[in-house]
């Protein structure tokens, strides 16, 4: 888009999203950017003085777009979030003000499901510990590394059968896992066994893969009760949001051997830099990277670019979140 003396549309960016720095240059050649995270002025003041005319904003999945932030943006018509999750946005205010919200839709589903599968296999087959065993020169022969556990024939309980849950199910089925699930509604087009109650799902499962959105119903839904129901050989994999699990309870269960292991990409507080989890060998930890691939970032860039362009040209948007 050539600069013809006409000013480029302005977008306020909050967070910023992890990938923003990588695309900042190209983004800035098409839009004027109000960077809200690196000002000396407190945010409310910054918005009051600079953001009165801002119609569109870009936010990460972590920055909290609260009622206060929204009311500081009187001209706001569009919120583009780089995440699929919406727990960080006050949707009630958006509905009230008629603000459109677009999210990542399903563009990340494959990468997120891949990481879920990767974490599960790593925990069961001890890939990360095994890699450490060899690279730290501990391998001296047969039998000096403990055996892992088989995937095939085991029962995999999926919490939340949305696009990510379905992608996880498709993958784990190919390993010979039996798929069970709990979700708000039963999905009649899949052959998987539906459990109305999450505790029953846990009792019936060998692994639990958490693929649900974070909201008031799902906060701490995985608590001590559910973990005990999952059992001593049970493995939990979390690629949803940290607060879906009562993290203190999880650590306690792991310490006492009441569950078998965990693969965690998300935590109640991020970034996580100190935790009792760090002492444990039967857990695999990753720094909220489920969407951190070159391919997903490119897809995200293409998506938000298209949406901002479309917005300023009054064209239809992609991945609009229904707010009714």
């Amino acid at each position, binding site marked *: 888009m050539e600069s013809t003396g006409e000013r480029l549309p302005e977008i306020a960016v909050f967070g910023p999203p992890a990938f923003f720095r990588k695309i900042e240059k190209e983004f800035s050649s098409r839009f004027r950017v109000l960077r809200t995270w690196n000002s000396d002025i407190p945010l409310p003041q910054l918005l009051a003085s600079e953001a009165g005319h801002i119609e569109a904003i870009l936010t990460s999945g972590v920055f909290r777009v609260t009622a206060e932030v929204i009311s500081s943006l009187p001209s706001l018509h569009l919120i583009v979030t780089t995440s699929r999750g919406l727990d960080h946005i006050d949707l009630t205010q958006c509905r009230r003000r008629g603000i459109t919200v677009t999210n990542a839709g399903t563009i990340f589903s494959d990468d997120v499901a891949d990481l879920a599968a990767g974490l599960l296999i790593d925990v069961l087959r001890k890939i990360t510990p095994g890699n450490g065993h060899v690279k730290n020169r501990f391998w001296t022969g047969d039998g000096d590394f403990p055996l892992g556990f088989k995937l095939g024939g085991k029962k995999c309980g999926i919490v939340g059968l949305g696009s990510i849950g379905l992608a996880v199910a498709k993958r784990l089925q190919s390993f010979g896992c039996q798929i069970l699930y709990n979700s708000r509604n039963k999905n009649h087009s899949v052959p998987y066994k539906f459990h109305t109650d999450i505790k029953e799902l846990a009792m019936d499962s060998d692994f639990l893969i958490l693929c649900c959105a974070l909201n008031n119903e799902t906060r701490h839904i995985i608590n001590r009760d559910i973990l005990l129901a999952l059992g001593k050989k049970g493995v939990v994999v979390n690629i949803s949001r940290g607060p879906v699990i009562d993290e203190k309870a999880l650590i306690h269960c792991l310490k006492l051997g009441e569950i078998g292991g965990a693969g965690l990409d998300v935590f109640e507080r991020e970034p996580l*830099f100190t935790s009792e989890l760090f002492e444990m060998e039967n857990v695999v930890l990753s720094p909220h990277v489920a969407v951190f691939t070159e391919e997903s970032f490119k897809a995200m860039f293409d998506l938000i670019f298209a949406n901002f362009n479309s917005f300023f040209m009054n064209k239809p948007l992609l991945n609009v979140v229904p707010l009714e």
Partner: protein
Amino acid sequence: MESIGVLLMAPFNSYLDQELDKRFKLFRYWTQSNPKEFVAQHAEMIRAAVGNATVGVDGILIDALPKLEIISSFSVGVDKIDLKKCGEKGIRVTNTPDVLTDDVADLAIGLSLAVLRQISVCDRYVRSGLWKNGDFKLTTKFSGKRVGIIGLGRIGLAIAQRAEAFDCPINYYSRSPKPNTNYKYYPSVIELASNSDILVVACALTPETRHIVNRQVMEALGPKGVLINIGRGGHVDEPELVSALVEGRLGGAGLDVFENEPHVPEQLFGLDNVVLLPHVGSGTVETRKEMADLVLGNLEAHFSGKPLLTRVV
């Protein structure tokens, strides 16, 4: 059967050791400071031998056991057994196919994900407290990548089925095209490597397949290509592999096997794009028990005149 001597080559499974000890007269090869002498001393009694993927029964040992009737291998690969000599002498050989197919295939996919998504590096990043300094880097998507499989036997097929669930197009090389598959056949490993993002070794190790992954194959796979070896160390030219990885001519590797286990080239230890495992392809509690039962079942069948369960020779 307590008078039947069985020679166990290494302590690879304590349940197997216990059961062999119960049912036969067990001789433990690895406990001897002078194994040659030990074997000579007990040769008259030893009618069976049990080895695994790492410690086999070679021609010299076979010659030293004149009463040997059967070798029951605790593995599916029998490259460490002198099969030719067994054939000549009428010594029967059994292995443990099928029971470990799923575990090995699971590991091939697990290694692919570990290498592409750098899962072990991520784990170390979190545990070292680095996350507070900033986000982790971008890695590479696995779904949709072209998977090239060398050998489309039981294990190769199981790997293909799993990779398909990740929407990976499947290519393969084998001695001849397999009927009844939709996978794309390539008549040479170099062509397979040129058309794949991830190359998986899943064939048996024979004199023909030794170093089937050589320098040219690695160059065809290229600086973004990943090699996964769940076959045998002997399939890959290891010094070439090390220099290709160190020099960045090959994009990454996930290795469960090595030419001279447990020796692993140290130049690989510092590479984030390389995941190394201590030969755990069949290493699950469930499968090792099934393998042990199969070894025991084959020995029992042989010594009671019944048909062998999983005969190779």
